[in-house]
């Protein structure tokens, strides 16, 4: 395997004395979909928080394409290419669907005095067209002027992903993308993520739905009690005894 795009090495994190992560390693190769699974409280979300910068680790490193990003704040990681979604959706509820996507592009848009130029002017025309296109892709076009909070849950999830993708990430971190979705929504999710991977995007996904995991992942890492239990291709790993024991409890 070539040099991984995202490398997490020996990350440890304690919350008030309780170990949430213990020396966890994670290597994600470019252009793959990497699943992180494990029972509740295994540290999956904390790992995602460490990678995206919301939680500073007590020890360990996070590297993106060889660059150490461990000490960067979340907003500095976005322009570098680490973008995430949240388990409980975080949209700009009072803003319109289109505005949400435009905000996703923020890191790529011009800053300084240029940021005062009207959104419809030439400088932003390209980005704006791109945002409109993203709305088409995610079937959000009919709602573009509606406030995000008014959308049904499934569409809000779509919108959050559209906003994340608007930042043109190198690594997309998805926190339980299928949670709360209808069966139909879940089915639509699988080809979409595959498509993104085929376009060259690297995806790290935390998910409970094993169907989704086994359908989209090239590689899975299993966490239990904050430790890395095992890892490898989804089929054999998920079938292993270790993992079954961890999930079913002992």
């Amino acid at each position: 395997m070539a040099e991984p795009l995202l490398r997490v090495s020996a990350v440890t994190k304690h919350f008030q004395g309780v170990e949430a992560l213990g020396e966890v390693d994670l290597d994600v190769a470019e252009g793959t979909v990497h699943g992180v699974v494990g029972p509740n409280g295994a540290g999956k979300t904390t790992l995602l928080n460490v990678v995206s910068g919301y939680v500073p680790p007590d020890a360990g490193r996070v590297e993106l394409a060889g660059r150490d990003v461990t000490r960067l704040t979340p907003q500095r990681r976005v322009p570098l290419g680490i973008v995430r979604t949240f388990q409980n959706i975080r949209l700009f509820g009072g803003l319109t669907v289109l505005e949400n996507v435009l905000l996703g592009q923020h890191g790529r848009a011009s800053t300084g005095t240029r940021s005062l130029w009207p959104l419809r002017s030439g400088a932003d025309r390209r980005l704006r067209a791109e945002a409109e296109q993203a709305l088409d892709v995610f079937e959000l076009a009919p709602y573009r002027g509606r406030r995000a909070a008014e959308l049904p849950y499934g569409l809000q999830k779509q919108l959050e992903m559209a906003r994340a993708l608007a930042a043109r990430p190198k690594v997309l971190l998805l926190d339980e993308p299928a949670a709360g979705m209808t069966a139909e929504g879940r089915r639509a999710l699988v080809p979409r993520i595959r498509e993104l991977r085929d376009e060259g995007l690297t995806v790290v996904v935390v998910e409970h739905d094993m169907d989704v995991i086994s359908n989209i992942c090239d590689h899975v890492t299993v966490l239990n009690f904050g430790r890395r239990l095992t890892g490898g291709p989804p089929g054999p790993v998920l079938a292993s005894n270790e993992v079954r024991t961890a999930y079913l409890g002992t």
Partner: protein
Amino acid sequence: MLAQQLFNGLLLGATFCLVALGFNLVVGAMDRLNFALGETAMVSAVLGALIMTETPVPFPVAFAAATAIGGGVAVAVYYLSFRFVSADFPTASILSSLGCGLVLTAVVTKAFGSHQRSVPDVLSGVRLDLGVLTVSGAQLVILLLATLLTAGLYLFLERTPWGTAIRAVSDDATMAGLLGVPVQRVILLTFALSGVLAGAAGLLTGLAYHSISPFDGFTTTLTALMIIVLGGLGSVTGGVVAALVIGLIQTLTVAYLSATLRDLIVFILVGIVLLVRPQGLFGRNAGVLERV
């Protein structure tokens, strides 16, 4: 002299303590601030003093009346500024209660004029000479009543079903509601209690200061705010300790430095606490546990 000054500070702290506790109760129950509480205290004190000067009733009756007035005003403020004001806009009830405060001040000014009202002394013949300090009758009354009320509140919250209900609502109103706690009535009770405390504080402060001004309300609210921020929002113990600390600091600043610096020192202290330890001296580790 130091002993006397320390006692002065303790006394000041004891009166602060009552308003701060009232303020804290509402913060706990609703996560909202009642900015009319200082004016509630002022109105109770003005009417209490009026009862003391105009009628022959003994002080305990006037005191009881002041607490009842405080409770009533607080309940009225609840209906005007909280019950029917949307919680979606955090500024709404703040402004609304500030508006109530303005109305209370204006009504008192209109009815009784803008001058300070004198509060008659109680037990004016009594003077305890303890060597290093002397204690007047009024000071004894203030200390006694403030201690009684604080202890009473503590017991009420800890030992009675209604107290438990208040604590449950302040912990998690939604959950408490699901468990069958009549949340609206508990909140109403909380407001009434906060008003009673404010009313008591108003009249006791009046006794300590010898008079009450219709413009005292905002200062009272401000001091209470500083106290609960210092002690930690929602923390009863923190509130009591912070009230005493601020009372002592204010008194000692005035005695040994300058009154001009009095508020400033308190402000700087609170500012530093906010920037360094935003949960207050006794607050729980608020905010740290929120998972992303």
